[in-house]
């Protein structure tokens, strides 16, 4: 999962075994996959009820619910009933809910193989193409964004085929920096990869921590890799890895070079001491307290950072190798809205989804300091902070230039077992870059073969 934010839960192995077994009691190997079951029209008095599932939390959940209230106001005959589950346990719970006899109508998924893929393969989600044509969804979003929601109907290929989800919010990985500290280094905001590296060196020499990173959960290291590979790997390499192109491999030159660069950064002392035992939250807290010049992280940290640091924190996308080249960035169109295969009110569900993903909502998100996959041309609202404004502008440039790249861990569902730990070992210099990437490629190949 790209935005892996699983909360610690105190399960023992024995409990896990028991839970597996309990799940298997409900839907064992003999469970049928008969796809569409008879629909179910829920009603509350005279009002129709649309059952909606989401893993959102915080301000995004608030904005989604506010928007849903506006829908209900426009359609008084419809009641939106939200089921909110925490992000960590959402995939497991959603799978069970959709496989049950009382599946919800509309659900938020998660990109790629972590959630959308298995659900589509099991026939639990509908292709949305008929409604996409009716409402113009296929033209509402840039294709670089739309592609992250495409699957073949058999669920075997990601990034092509039918539209299975409609996005509404987005995220992008970049560099947060301490404005004050960068100014003291004296070279201004880096415009190239070379300038960024020389900032690291200057920072280290002056006793600052160049890169503040907490890699305890192991995925943040891969986010650092995204940043570097945006510069050193080609579009074809990155999209190929994610969308199952077998002519592209993790051991291609762009990735090997990226991995070697990270190992070199670590060996040069650019990455914070204790990186492997520090949580991302700790890293963020340290950065807020003034440790670290740069913080490589996702846009979802912006609200917390600007609340704590005000105008002393700013953001830029990975600077290109050659000065002036358009910046490329790894990001996602968040999680999409989906219609379940068993919903008996798919048209109403589509109407709801359309309302939830219109430009009006994109503007509401922007006003709340968030970003969405929709280019907003006019009526750009005032950002709630300088940081939010910078992220918004950076994100819009990526959409306009078509330089958005997908998260590399969308390529297979076993990031936590293979990709993240191997990348951590590469960065630490425990495994040679190419050797480590071979291991990752091998597991990707096994996954593609199993499809």
């Amino acid at each position, binding site marked *: *999962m790209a935005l892996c934010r699983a909360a*610690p*839960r*105190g*399960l*023992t*192995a*024995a409990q*896990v*075994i*028991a*839970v*597996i*077994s*309990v*799940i*298997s*009691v409900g*839907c*064992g*190997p*003999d*469970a*049928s*996959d008969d796809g569409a079951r008879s629909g179910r029209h829920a009603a509350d008095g005279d009002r129709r009820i649309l059952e909606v599932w989401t893993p959102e939390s915080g301000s995004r959940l608030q904005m989604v619910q506010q928007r849903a209230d506006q829908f209900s106001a426009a359609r008084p005959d419809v009641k939106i009933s939200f089921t909110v589950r925490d992000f960590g346990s959402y*995939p*497991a719970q959603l*799978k069970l809910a*959709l*496989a049950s006899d009382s599946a919800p109508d509309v659900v938020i998924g998660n990109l790629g193989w*972590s959630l959308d893929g*298995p*659900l589509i*393969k*099991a026939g*639990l989600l509908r292709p949305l193409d008929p409604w996409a044509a009716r409402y113009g969804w296929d033209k509402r979003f840039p294709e670089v964004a739309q592609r992250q929601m495409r699957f073949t109907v058999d669920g075997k290929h990601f990034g092509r085929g039918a539209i299975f989800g409609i996005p509404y919010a987005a995220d992008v990985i970049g560099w947060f920096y301490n404005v004050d500290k960068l100014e003291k280094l004296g070279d201004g905001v880096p415009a190239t990869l070379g300038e960024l590296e020389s900032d690291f060196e200057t920072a280290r020499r002056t006793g600052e921590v160049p890169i503040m990173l907490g*890699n*305890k*959960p*192991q995925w943040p290291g891969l986010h650092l890799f995204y940043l570097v590979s945006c510069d050193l790997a080609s579009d074809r390499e990155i999209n190929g890895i994610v969308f199952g192109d077998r002519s592209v491999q993790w051991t291609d030159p762009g990735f090997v070079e990226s991995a070697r660069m990270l190992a070199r950064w670590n060996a040069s002392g650019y990455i914070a*001491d*204790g*990186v*492997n*035992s*520090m949580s991302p939250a700790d890293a963020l807290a340290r950065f807020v307290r003034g440790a670290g010049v740069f913080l490589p992280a996702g846009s979802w940290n912006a609200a917390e950072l600007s609340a704590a640091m005000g105008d002393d924190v700013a953001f830029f996308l990975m600077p290109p190798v050659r000065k002036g080249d358009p910046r490329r960035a790894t990001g996602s169109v968040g999680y999409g809205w989906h219609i379940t295969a068993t919903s008996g009110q798919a048209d109403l569900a589509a109407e709801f989804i359309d309302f939830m993903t219109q430009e009006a909502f994109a503007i509401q998100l922007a006003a709340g300091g968030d970003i969405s996959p929709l280019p907003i041309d006019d009526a750009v609202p005032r950002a709630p902070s300088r940081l939010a404004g910078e992220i918004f502008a950076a994100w819009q440039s990526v959409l306009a230039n078509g330089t958005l790249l997908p998260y590399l861990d969308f390529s297979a*569902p*076993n990031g*936590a*077992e*293979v990709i993240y*730990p*191997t990348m*951590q*070992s590469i960065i*630490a210099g*425990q*495994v040679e870059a190419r050797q480590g990437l071979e291991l990752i490629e091998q597991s990707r190949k096994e996954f593609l073969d199993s499809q």
Partner: protein
Amino acid sequence: MTARGRRALPYLYLLPAFLFFVPFVLVPFAHTVGLSFYDWDGLTRAAFTGLGNYREAFGSALVRSAFGHAFVLIFFFGVLPVLLALPLAVSSVNASIPGGNALRTLIFLPQAISTVVVGVSWGWILALDGPLNAGLHAFGLDWAAVDWLGSFTWALPSLGIVGTWTLTGLCVALFFAGLQQIPGSLYDAAAVDGAGRLREFLAVTLPGLKGPIAVALTVTVISALRAFDLVFVTTRGGPGTETVVPGLLIYRRAFEDGRLGSAAAIAVILSIVVFAVTLLINRIADRNAP
């Protein structure tokens, strides 16, 4: 009561426990075993793969290393606590130091704390700028201060030491109870025979503690093999795969990767290992029984 009734009586006593054991232990375990022969993502139709999941598990370097780590943890969770607890229990059983009971309670205390709390606390103690390293720096041992849980060399032993800290108290409590069962007359006899402290320990105390030692080893070895919560809270299997244990793989494959058959196969292997090791411990203890 008829003869038949007398024969049935013991089974009737077992019945209540059995009624719970079957639906909550036996049936789920049978399901897990069944599941381990399938390739199943939890949603689509499961495909029978025979021993495929087991072949994959035995062939996987990661799975093998996970079991290797579990055996390293056996040393720290089982062997070390027993070795530490023996002298602690023996030396304190006869000594009437003031506050002795309070001391024993303190040693046992870690056992009463939730593993998650233990993990979070030790994560803080072992942090690069945590109290342990602060202490090392204070003594001028700067070279010894490392990022314990983030080090590819020290992460697993560090987790092990946390286990030692947690389980030593349990062993002390077990041995302390065991020591009070040893008849004083045996010690008198040993004294009459002119046995020294060491001789007395080897000839009387150790054989008398055979039962409690077997119990302590069984409990601690099982907790080493099924270690999951401590790892999940402190290292998540990292850095790299240095602290990956079977429980973590089971959790990830079942709940994150959607490979329930594979997770079930590892769970079955783990259960067999646990069963075999505990059987071995009890066999050895029985054979040497006085």
